[in-house]
């Protein structure tokens, strides 16, 4: 066990921090899976409109890896399958019924789990169609279940703005979490790493290599933790999984059911009562936000404000997301803004170029706060990237489409979410994380 101290980075002081109680949201009448949430997957439908499904029934599979299937998070009738351009499946909507039956799987005692073999564990997870909860590094895609990962990493701390507090979310789930750890430990010959904050509820979990981390965002990002604990080398694979999903897998083993509920946050300056909320995977945004918006002109984001996806009220939450963030769309155009000394009520900057007297939470809007310009490297990226990586050079190697160079500059170790703060802080309003994503796609196509 070691303690990692992150210095670079920044915790954005955004207003609308969620309350620490978990409220039970209103029940929705439908939910959906969005195959577009899964990069690199070629979805093939296993249901058609009108079919009835139970919780856990497979909805679609990946043509490239047919044993990877996606479980329905609800029971009911397939209401609609929406196709996009070129017949891409955009969403599979399930109309929920009253009694919410789930498929029954075999239950295990906690000792049974320890006696299972790797293949048996994998069969249970694949059989319950829950494998997509694992993701791999590099590339942050769904791994191939046939290839053993070097290690499995679990980040037990969320540092993204307004993200779920894992301490709150896991409060009643420690037992399931332990069972989940015991199960997934079988999937690798290496170690299962859990990175917590100091004095976490999860510090007593066994069969896992626990490290502690402290510091600002992106300390909670898995890539940062992998980078500081055990570097990812180009030929290696690491699986990652979120703590709530580990508990869900634990529950699958202990109780023999798939429990699609999870705890999310509904937060941000545009939310009236920011809070933690218990919902199901794939819930409609409308049922989560119902009458909790503070104004009409807002931007809804599935995910956090740094990496999320813009969505509408009619939309559904993305599979991996565990927050809905809302920011205002109303932009105040200051007169001669560039000369204004600025105050902490109207300006927020990591580069201390504004007079700031108080330390308030800032009501961010969707304003870009400036126009796009060529990069002027005043070090704003380096200050928020706690990795031994040269962001400026990496960025340029991607623009130059120099695969070899981006590989040797360490692109394998990164994910676009690690560079979100770089985009945030850049005075030229450069889309750093977008370019990193582009680079990762190029690199993935190459290997």
């Amino acid at each position, binding site marked *: 066990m070691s303690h990692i101290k992150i210095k670079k980075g920044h915790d954005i002081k955004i207003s609308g921090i969620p309350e620490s109680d978990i409220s039970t949201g209103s029940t929705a009448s439908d939910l959906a899976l969005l195959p577009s949430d899964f990069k690199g997957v070629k979805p093939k439908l296993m249901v058609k409109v009108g079919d009835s499904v139970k919780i856990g029934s497979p909805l679609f599979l990946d043509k490239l890896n047919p044993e990877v299937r996606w479980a329905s998070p609800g029971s009911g009738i397939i209401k609609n399958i929406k196709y996009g351009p070129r017949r891409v499946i955009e969403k599979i909507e399930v109309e929920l019924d009253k009694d919410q039956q789930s498929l029954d799987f075999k239950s295990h005692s906690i000792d049974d789990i320890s006696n299972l073999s790797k293949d048996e564990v994998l069969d249970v997870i694949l059989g319950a169609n829950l494998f997509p909860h694992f993701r791999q590094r590099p590339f942050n895609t769904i791994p191939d279940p046939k290839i053993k990962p070097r290690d499995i990493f679990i980040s037990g701390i969320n540092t993204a703005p307004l993200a779920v507090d894992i301490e709150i979310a896991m409060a009643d789930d420690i037992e399931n979490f332990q069972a989940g750890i015991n199960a997934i430990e079988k999937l690798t010959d290496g170690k299962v790493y859990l990175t917590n904050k100091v004095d976490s509820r999860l510090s007593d979990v066994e069969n896992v290599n626990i490290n502690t981390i402290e510091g600002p965002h992106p300390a909670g990002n898995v890539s940062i933790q992998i980078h500081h604990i055990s570097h990812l*080398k180009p030929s290696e694979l690491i699986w990652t999984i979120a703590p709530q999903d580990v508990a869900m897998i634990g529950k699958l083993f202990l109780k023999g059911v798939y429990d699609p509920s999870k705890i999310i946050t509904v937060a941000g300056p545009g939310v009236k009562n920011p809070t933690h909320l218990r919902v199901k995977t794939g819930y409609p945004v409308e049922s989560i936000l119902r009458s909790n918006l503070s104004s009409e002109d807002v931007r809804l984001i599935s995910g956090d404000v740094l990496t999320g996806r813009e969505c509408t009220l009619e939309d559904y939450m993305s599979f991996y997301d565990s927050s809905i963030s809302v920011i205002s769309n109303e932009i105040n155009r200051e007169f001669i803004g560039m000369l204004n000394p600025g105050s902490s009520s109207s300006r927020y900057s990591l580069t*201390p170029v504004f007079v700031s007297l108080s330390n308030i939470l800032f009501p961010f809007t969707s304003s*870009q706060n400036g126009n796009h310009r*060529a990069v002027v490297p*005043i070090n704003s990226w380096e200050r928020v990237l706690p990795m031994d990586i040269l962001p400026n050079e990496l960025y340029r190697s991607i623009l130059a489409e120099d695969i070899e160079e981006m590989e040797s*500059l360490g692109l394998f170790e990164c994910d676009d979410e690690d560079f*979100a703060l770089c985009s945030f802080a850049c*005075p030229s309003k450069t889309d750093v994380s977008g370019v990193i994503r582009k680079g990762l796609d190029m690199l993935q196509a190459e290997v």
Partner: protein
Amino acid sequence: MKWLLDYLLKIKPNFDEGQKLNWLYPLYEATETILFSTDAKTKSAPHIRDSIDIKRVMILVVVALIPCYVFGAINIGYQNALSFGLERTWVENLIFGAKTIIPIIVVTFVAGAFWEILFAIVRKHEISEGFLVTCALIPLTMPPSIPLWQLFIATSFGIVIGKEIFGGVGMNIFNPALTARCFIFFSYPSKISGDMVWLVGPDGYSGATALSVPASTNSADAVSLLDGITQFDYSWINLASGWIPGSIGETNKFIIFLAAVALMIMKLISWRVILGGVSGLFAMSYIGTLIAPFSDNSMLSIPPHYHLVMGSFAFGLTFMATEPVTGSHTDTGRLVYGFFVGVLTVIIRSINPAYPEGVMLAILLMNAFASLIDYFVVKVNIRKRMARYA
């Protein structure tokens, strides 16, 4: 100011695609976003952005230059009074100096804005606020006696050749303000090489600059040579406080020091370049003083702390060498880059007999080498990573 914004938004459609005034859109866009902060929204994640933008960065550098202008104006008046043997208050000096530098500023900005806007219209890109800094820097590097036509040509050269042909701010390899200065230096060398003082004084009035004093005498101690000059006060403290003839903005080192500290606190310039530059200057000039007893070159005997306040080193290092685009882009690179700016400045000053001042050439040379330094920093980074992978 709502009415002004409303008016601007009302006339905006005239500049749209397909309208008669569309070719003037960059000018409209610049006016609107200078007067009112932009209404641009984020298009993709991250959905929120920091409040800093390039406009803010550039305008703050310009603001940091204002004290240099004020002191420069007072000093022009003071030197003028001195050369005519007049008694004047500092207000009168300021007014006299302002009369000299305002035409210089106007000509620079007219030339700069003309080329920037022309390129923005022809190349159909937004007007970049970077030219504000370039145009604010150029007058400060010029002698107060500069003929305005030379200034116009030099500014045009600096903006066009130094910046626009590369694609504008962010793409240039040489500092545009120094490119302009360099153009004048080599095109009109009789006026600007730095061996004779520049001041607005009587016809035929002349004298040696602090740097050319030791350059023109062999086998002597530089400090005692400087102390022996009676025409100007070349004591260390006076060189530092800037009551000497020189380019408009570079003489007062205390003001430049304060500006450098302010810009470093605001993290707009890199402390690494400054630290590297000062250490390079000290290291090389210390080596010079060690060699001095064995050489008849009196320039070598200038002690490090004199090098720091002589000529334009402080100004060049603070405002030119720290320019983020043309300098090194990596942290380690910035230290090395700054160090060699300091070293080369002393080498050009001391060993090159043709140019008493070397900071401009040192920075331009290092601009050219900046990417090479970065290349090696990147190689080291890659080698470290490969060692980890192995």
